[in-house]
């Protein structure tokens, strides 16, 4: 790039020399300075005026409006996203609550049923125990009745045997008295 510029300048200088022979470099003719400066000032001031008062504010407005619009849209989007997140959280909480509720109900039912079964079992148990007791009592009563009947028969038999042996009527009470130790009573 630098070498290129140097070469360009060399060519330009050569050409300038040629021009110098034919009346000087046009750029260095002071006769043309004033009109150029005058028109440069006029056009540049006009350009500066048009740019700063009309053209650039319009561009700035559009760019700023677009930036605002994009920011507004982004804000709205993030607000909507927050709302969605909240709704989702609410929904999930409701779902979890319902689940907890359902499992609570199931547990309650299970416990109630278990309690009912237990109560029924206990009732039946008591019933059976009572019946067993009753049966036991009946057996015991029958047994003792039978036993006492055996004692009476033994007494009667012993009295009859004694009567036959000694031909004397012995009172039942006496026979019993004698037999009682034998019977282990």
């Amino acid at each position, binding site marked *: 790039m630098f070498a290129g*510029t140097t070469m*360009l*300048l060399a*060519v*330009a200088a050569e*050409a*300038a020399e*040629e*021009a110098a022979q*034919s*009346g000087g*470099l*046009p*750029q*260095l*003719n002071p*006769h*043309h*300075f*004033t*009109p*150029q*400066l*005058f*028109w*440069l*000032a*006029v*056009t*540049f001031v*006009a*350009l*500066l005026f*048009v*740019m*700063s008062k*009309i*053209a*650039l504010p*319009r*561009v*700035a*407005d*559009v*760019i700023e*409006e*677009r930036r605002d*619009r994009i920011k507004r849209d982004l804000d709205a989007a993030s607000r909507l996203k927050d709302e969605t997140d909240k709704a989702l959280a609410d929904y999930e909480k409701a779902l979890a609550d319902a689940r907890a509720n359902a499992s609570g109900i199931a547990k309650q039912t299970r416990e109630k049923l278990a309690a009912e079964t237990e109560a029924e079992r206990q009732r039946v148990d008591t019933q059976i125990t009572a019946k067993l007791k009753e049966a036991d009592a009946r057996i015991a009563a029958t047994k003792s009745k039978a036993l006492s009947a055996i004692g009476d028969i033994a007494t009667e038999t012993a009295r009859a045997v004694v009567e036959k042996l000694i031909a004397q009527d012995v009172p039942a009470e006496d026979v019993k008295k004698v037999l009682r130790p034998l019977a282990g009573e």
Partner: protein
Amino acid sequence: MAAEGAGHHGPMEQFEIRNIFHLDLFGHDISFTNSSLMMVVALALISGFMIFAMRGRSLVPSRVQSLAEIAYEYVAGMVKENLGEEGMKFFPWVFSIFIFILILNLVGLIPGNFTVTSHIIVTFALAAMVWLVATFIGFWTHGLGYLKLFVPEGVPVWLMPVIIPIELISYFIRPISHSVRLFANMMAGHTMLEVFAGFAVMLPWWGKIAPAGFMVAFTGLEFLVAFLQALIFTVLTCIYLNDAVHMHH
């Protein structure tokens, strides 16, 4: 070169100022010339384009509106990068400098058109305006403290007698380097094109191809230079303004 006849004086002839009509203001010559015409054409093109492009002012820009917005954002980015957000108060001025030089450069590339920026007096006037505005803003913002710009920090005292003159010279030479860069690039490029066009005319038909081909390639390069020089002029304007506003070196 007899074939070229009267009125043609070689590659420098394109830089000749020609009166279109004569004007006088208090005894000063302010004739409307080919240079003035190109300035007015550039002014009309820029104003017309910027206003036409933004006529819709739509949120979703059309193609021309995009172009105007790109130009705006491009220069605004340059100003913000160099001067910060508060530098935007200089934006219309910087934008005008950029677009004016750019369009003058580009319009000058159309064959037969005069290139306003190939005249040192024009580029010097623009550079001098930048220098004066920057210097004025420097003193306006910092008062006499602006003179500290010529006393760099961290330089030993015994070096000051050397450094201060160097800084002063480099400051006062700014408008010259600023203007000559643009002027020399535009003049050199256009002279080069004219020289090779001269070859293409002079040589027999089998010899015309090389200079003509070169001209095609070189015209492409000149478009790049036209843009680049407008950009460099504007960036330097921002840098000088930054010195004036912030006094950073």
